């Protein structure tokens, strides 16, 4: 009898100890879950907040573009205007380039594409030279050929101490005189035009390259051509 009671008592005591241990473990777990929830909320809040400034200034941005900056390809008047602020030396702009070309092939009559210079000279030492080379090619009537080639051969001139010979070779390949291009690219009017685009970008709160706008609205395409297509289809349906 006595043995039974003592056994029962031990079992109860053990159960109590387990409950105490569990309640001790529950406290930190609850705190961990709460802290993670607060952190997740903060991260979502911050990520949404930093999207807002460009959206708020979208209307002002549209007005800035009337000044005749940038270059366009596609029909002069189209249902969709896709604007890119880009940097020829930026690897992500290079990565987006095939997507933009795919869009232009897919919607030849509905999309007008505008490219605006936005060289980040502080981190891309050859960017300004590349943008000038594109402008110089533009003067010879081959802006877009040079634009495409600068992105296609980005890896070949990006890290060169002097990229000019590569620009000359690219120019020769697209059918314009490379020597003339290299000589003329330092004309101050090209730099002025580039800086005008940069100013327009600054006014539009462009903070990173590439930054895209569809019909004056800043857009955030993910890293895929399908996202561009979805955005353009959505905008075509709005019409």
């Amino acid at each position: 009898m006595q043995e039974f009671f003592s056994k029962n008592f031990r079992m109860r005591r053990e159960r109590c100890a387990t409950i105490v241990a569990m309640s001790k473990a529950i406290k930190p777990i609850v705190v961990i879950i709460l802290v993670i929830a607060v952190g997740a909320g903060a991260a979502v809040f911050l990520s949404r907040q930093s999207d807002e400034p460009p959206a708020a200034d979208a209307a002002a941005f549209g007005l800035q573009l009337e000044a005749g900056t940038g270059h366009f390809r596609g029909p002069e008047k189209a249902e969709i205007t896709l604007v890119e602020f880009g940097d020829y030396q930026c690897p992500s702009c290079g990565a987006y380039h095939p997507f933009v070309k795919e869009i232009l092939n897919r919607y030849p009559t509905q999309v007008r594409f505008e490219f605006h210079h936005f060289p980040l000279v502080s981190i891309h030492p050859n960017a300004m030279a590349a943008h000038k080379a594109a402008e110089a090619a533009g003067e010879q009537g081959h802006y877009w050929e040079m634009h495409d080639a600068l992105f296609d051969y980005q890896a070949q001139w990006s890290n060169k101490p002097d990229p000019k010979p590569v620009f000359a070779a690219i120019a020769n390949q697209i059918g314009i005189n490379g020597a003339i291009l290299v000589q003329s690219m330092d004309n101050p009017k090209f730099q002025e035009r580039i800086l005008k685009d940069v100013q327009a970008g600054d006014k539009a709160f462009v903070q990173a390259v590439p930054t895209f706008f569809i019909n004056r609205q800043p857009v955030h395409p993910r890293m895929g051509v399908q996202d561009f297509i979805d955005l353009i289809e959505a905008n075509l349906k709005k019409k």
Partner: protein
Amino acid sequence: MKTRHLVIALLAFIGMIDALFLSIKRNAGPIPCHVTHGCSDVLTSKYSEVLGIPLSWFGLAFYVTVLSLAIFKLFEDPERPYEAPSKLIFYLSGAGLIVSALLVGIQAFILKAYCEYCLLSAALVLTIFLVCPHPGRPAKRTLPE
């Protein structure tokens, strides 16, 4: 000891927000830099993922683990302190430090562009490693005689 783990929990909390912010932002277009230049270059480069998994996810897992371990340590019974959390934090942050150093090296020498969120993360990992008690030299503890 408690203060150290409180500091570690706070640092890991900041790191967790940083990593989650980047994970969300990765799928939502260009990431603006405020202090440095080239956030997009860094975060869209081929070094920004391993086997298709963005590095920020690994960062998130690291910070959530360290945060949980530090909180467990904060709630320990003073008479029966846990040994494992401190050790784990030490080894995890040591491994994290090596990875962070590698990533900062890639930013400095290969990409030549810096991402402030990644630099913040590297600084946090370094601080966690320095603050965390060294398992080789256990802190003084008064044992009941």
